[in-house]
């Protein structure tokens, strides 16, 4: 899939699938005067059909998992998925709850994990920058072996 076209100005669609709100607020905070990611062309959009990136926050529950799948199907491809916050990465403190049987990455292909409870706006921005850098980089197949 050609993801190179996504490296300029990413438009974000934000999905809260059972979070405590903190990650959502910190994501919104990125848009406000102190952090202001709109400078770089990043925009929070209201419709999934305009989005390049889905930012998912929260540990997914049964009811929202169904919706999440539908939302992903509606997204124009290529579409990147960012798991924002510890809950989205690993279900965090809510692991083992009767209403949360599946973690996010078993349902969607996650491209980036941003841990933190909640991640600071700086961490979110750094994560997205990492993602863009990774898309720009030519694929290195032998990187793992080289490290060992």
């Amino acid at each position, binding site marked *: 899939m050609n993801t190179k076209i996504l490296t300029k100005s990413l438009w974000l669609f934000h999905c809260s699938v059972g979070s405590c709100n903190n990650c959502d607020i910190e994501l919104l905070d990125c848009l406000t005067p102190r952090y202001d990611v709109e400078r770089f062309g990043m925009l929070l959009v209201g419709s999934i059909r305009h989005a390049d990136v889905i930012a998912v926050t929260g540990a997914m529950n*049964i*009811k929202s998992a*169904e919706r999440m799948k539908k939302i992903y199907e509606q997204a124009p491809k290529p579409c990147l998925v960012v798991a924002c916050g510890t809950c989205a990465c690993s279900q965090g403190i809510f692991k083992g709850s*009767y*209403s949360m049987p599946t973690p996010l990455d078993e349902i969607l292909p996650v491209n980036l994990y941003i841990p933190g409870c909640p991640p600071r706006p700086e961490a979110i921005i750094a994560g997205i920058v990492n993602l863009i850098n990774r898309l720009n980089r030519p694929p290195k197949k032998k990187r793992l072996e080289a490290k060992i």
Partner: protein
Amino acid sequence: MNEDFKKIILSKLNEFIKTYDSPSLNRGYIEIDLKDLINVVDLLYNSLSARFITATGFDNSKEFEIFYHFSFDSSNYVLTLKVVIPYENPVIQSLSTLFDAALWIEREIHEFFGINFIGHPDLAHLLLPEEWEEGNYPYRREERNA
């Protein structure tokens, strides 16, 4: 003022009280009979202008208990009514006939414990999905579910 107020409430509710306990100055716990619930709540809400806080369902492994919490804001007193519901026949009168604030919490207790509320307009799922397995009540004790 608080002590006087407590006496007024207790004298009004006297005929319904099975047990009464007041562990601290501004908390009271009263156990009443299942059939008296509507009368007592009507008295509290309409005559004594209590504010309904919420209800708590509880499964003590022998029977169900529902705690109805009421607050008397100006007198700084929180009164809790406890009713015991037999496990074999989990049915209780709905408070939604008295005030709309009971609508959601009764739906919630219905889906978590499987307790039926007589007179509730719509006991659909509130928090759990529509497809939730029938007869699986997450807040019942595990041995019950098995």
